[in-house]
């Protein structure tokens, strides 16, 4: 059942993989027009690459979210290298704190069960038990995440049973989360795996307090508070500045926010059921959680847009306002924000008009960014979403209208395809995911890194900042030009004359 959620999923130990749940595709080469047509007929499943490059499994984005949780210790149950991505996440985490004005930033803290050859034979449950007990005693956290890597998935370790068995003697709530890297090609399955455990372990409906003489005034005040309370679901690829911008807009509507999952305290999930509505900024990130929250607890949701660029931010804001009957307020905000933004963008538009751009990142972010850059006057020549599914269709529709032949490559990194495409479409600037960017730079293309740093990317502030940064980056392209002249790509020259999608083998329909 494409695009759907089956409530019974939550009774299972493991969330389904996205290939099965959503028909998600991660290998495709063609145009925006072709993907629109082929996805609709289910032609994109069961594809493969016959040449692969190191990629990203579901464990990696999972650690980005889970390591950010306050008062929580993540235990990566696996070999010593799984979870090592936290080194980079920790550095970014510190930068984020400094950007937020903290003078004493802290790095992340996680444990590895450090599975070895003997554990593969005799099982890793005992080591996991000792890690949980030690983590509880040593760090006194509110929650302990047990994150399963590939190995427990095939040696028969049962992290759920270990969690259940130990919970009575452990102060922290134990969250078993399954992120075996070999089980899915779609790293976004991680979001479902995390929310699956959060729904099972953390979300709850508080028991109603019963007092002998009810304080009707207090009850009414609480009802009013909750009628204006929204859940804002953040994503780990947002900066603090992004979050501030979105909260600013929601506050302008007179609403209050409960923000999670990233950087949240485990307690924050308990309040998820108090909100009037849940607001997502990324359908591919949140659909599993939102649907369950609605079906199980009756909390409706607003989903579908990533507030990137002027129009998508407008749509996002209108949907929220409409839910609360605040359409007039939204229009007033939009009118004033738009006027100010357009005035500020004028000098940049002049420099950016006609510049060719290529984008590579998460599905929605890539496509929404493309739409915004077209609005801004640039020419989108190629887009590379990390995966593609039904949530991308809204933005694809818009791109097809702009230019049906925009090149589209579904790839979780795979820079060999990217550099081939670059030689064909010759972009002036590349907006990419962490670790993609360098290959564009070596191709001589200026890079605007989409993620991280202290930048703002969302909302009106983000729309402005993207333009401002693009304008700056194109002021001097010497670094990338020198790189291209002096550093070579690892591929034979002939590769650049080949079809960039030569190694994608389109699969048969099941």
């Amino acid at each position: 059942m494409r695009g759907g959620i089956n409530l019974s999923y939550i009774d299972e130990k493991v969330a389904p993989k996205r290939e099965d749940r959503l028909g998600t595709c991660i290998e495709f080469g063609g145009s925006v027009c072709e993907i629109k047509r082929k996805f609709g007929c289910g032609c994109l499943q069961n594809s493969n690459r016959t040449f692969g490059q190191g990629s990203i499994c579901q464990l990696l984005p999972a650690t980005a979210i889970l390591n950010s949780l306050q008062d929580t210790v993540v235990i990566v149950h696996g070999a010593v290298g799984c979870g090592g991505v936290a080194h980079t996440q920790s550095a970014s985490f510190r930068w984020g704190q400094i950007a937020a004005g903290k003078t004493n930033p802290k790095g992340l803290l996680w444990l590895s069960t450090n599975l070895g050859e003997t554990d593969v034979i005799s099982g890793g449950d005992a080591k996991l038990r000792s890690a949980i007990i030690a983590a509880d005693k040593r760090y006194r956290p509110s929650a302990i995440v047990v994150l399963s890597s590939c190995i427990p998935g095939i040696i028969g370790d049962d992290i759920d049973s270990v969690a259940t068995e130990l919970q009575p003697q452990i102060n922290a709530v134990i969250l078993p989360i399954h992120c075996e890297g070999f089980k899915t090609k779609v790293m976004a399955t991680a979001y479902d795996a995390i929310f699956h455990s959060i729904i099972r372990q953390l979300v709850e409906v508080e028991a109603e307090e019963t007092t002998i003489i009810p304080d009707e005034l207090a009850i009414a005040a609480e009802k009013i508070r909750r009628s204006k309370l929204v859940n804002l679901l953040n994503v780990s690829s947002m900066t603090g500045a992004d979050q501030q911008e979105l909260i600013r807009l929601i506050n302008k509507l007179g609403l209050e926010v409960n923000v999670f999952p990233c950087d949240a305290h485990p307690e924050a999930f308990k309040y998820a059921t108090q909100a009037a509505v849940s607001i997502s900024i990324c359908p591919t990130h949140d659909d599993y959680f939102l649907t369950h929250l609605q079906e199980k607890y009756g909390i409706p949701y607003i989903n579908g847009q990533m507030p990137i660029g002027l129009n998508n931010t407008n749509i996002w804001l209108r949907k929220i306002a409409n839910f609360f009957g605040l359409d007039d307020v939204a229009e007033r905000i939009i009118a004033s924000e738009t006027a100010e933004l357009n005035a500020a963008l004028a000098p940049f538009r002049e420099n950016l008009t006609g510049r060719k751009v290529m984008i590579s990142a998460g599905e929605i972010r890539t496509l929404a960014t493309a739409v915004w850059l077209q609005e801004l006057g640039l020419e989108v020549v190629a887009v590379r979403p990390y995966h593609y599914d039904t949530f991308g269709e809204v933005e694809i529709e818009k791109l097809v209208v702009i230019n049906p032949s925009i090149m589209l490559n579904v790839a979780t990194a795979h820079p060999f395809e990217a550099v081939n495409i670059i030689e064909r479409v010759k972009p002036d600037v590349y907006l990419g995911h962490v670790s993609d960017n360098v290959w564009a730079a070596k191709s001589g293309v200026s890079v605007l890194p989409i993620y991280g740093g202290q930048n703002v990317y969302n909302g009106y502030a983000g729309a402005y900042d993207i333009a401002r940064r693009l304008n700056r980056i194109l002021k001097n392209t010497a670094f990338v030009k020198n790189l291209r002249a002096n550093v070579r790509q690892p591929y034979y020259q002939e590769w650049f004359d080949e079809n960039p999608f030569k190694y994608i083998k389109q699969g048969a329909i099941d």
Partner: protein
Amino acid sequence: MNTKFIERPRSFCALGGAALAVGAIPGAIPILHSSMGCGGSIYWNQLGSTGYLGAGYCGGLAVPSSNIQENDIVFGGAERLSEQVENTVKLVEGGLYVILTGCMTDIIGDDIQAVASEYRARGVTIIGAETGGVRGNGYRGYDIVLSALATDYIEQQETKVGSKVNLWGIVPGQDAFWRGNLVIIRNLLERLGLEVNSFFTEKDNLATIKNAGNAALNIVLSDFYGIGAAETFQDIHGVPYLATPLPIGPTASAEFLLKVGEALALDSAIVQELIRSETKHYYTYVDRIADAYSDLDFQRYAVVVGDANYSVAVTKFLADDLGWLPELTVVTDEIPTEQQVKITDYLGNLRSGYKTNIVYETDATEIKTHFRNHWPVNRGQQFYDAFSPAFVIGSSWEREFAKDIGAGHLTVAYPVSNRVVLNNGYAGYQGSLALIEDLFSVIVAER
């Protein structure tokens, strides 16, 4: 050594260490035979732990990888690997391809050697190594790669060249300063008239590596890393090895050069002359910082935290050359008890006679406990012999500990997230001058 869980492991897994080692050999291409996330996991680790070491020629997310899936694990992944190798050699230009397994393909027992043989028979220069993460950490991966080179790539030669040595023991990526360190020691040895094969620097190439079998000696700049490979090399190529701690500073460097001279039966006058001129060079610069050292009292108590190379080497430099007071040396590797004697002996016999306290601890948050156990806390005394002025030399993790005890801090060991490292190194005479610059610059940073 996988006896317990580890807080924030200070290493890659074996596959990561292996991939970085292969990627550091000019012209060599790693081919991962692993789950799809292994490549990304290694790279995203590397980007925050190695002084901003980039992907290079064919690393990062460009690394060829079979990205095996559940059905490969059920039915075997050799076929997928074969397809991957076939297309890699068509697409990616390299002089040597090295198949590296991850945990999953190790556990299911894919026969990568059969795949490698098949392609060798077809004229491809390719070898394979079993480097699944369950086999150990990044240091182990480095060792496995060197062993594989010794076994399947380096040509066997009867006649040895007396002045030719291989230089090992400094692990790419695990040591953020590996390039600088190797080049410094290489240059030093070249001044003894030796021909040096250092494998992992821009000065090396595949032709000389293939020809490494006629060396007279393998010099391993570590008592722990690369030893397994040196043993293998000795068995296959009949080349003995000299394992010696990483030398930092004039005292350790002189001891190092004497050992090399002895092992190769070099003319002792040449060795002595090199020691004399390098020491003179070192003191030409130290002479001119002695004013600040004396006027501003640069002597510091120190806690040194790092792997078995750095913790030992830096402790010795501080005590024997700089006149500092290393009170606590934290070795962050899991060193088997029977092998700890190598460290105890070395640090127990410092030329200065200074005694540090050695502990073995993998977990950063526990270091403070060791420190408290070692140095008495102030129980409200009016007159208290404080651990001050103090310095913590360790990794980026130790910033918080240094701040807690009011000490200066310099990152030298993995993970290195707060420094950018290009060709800088701390080894030898030259490197120790750089280390002095970096340490003293922290002290004067706010002036």
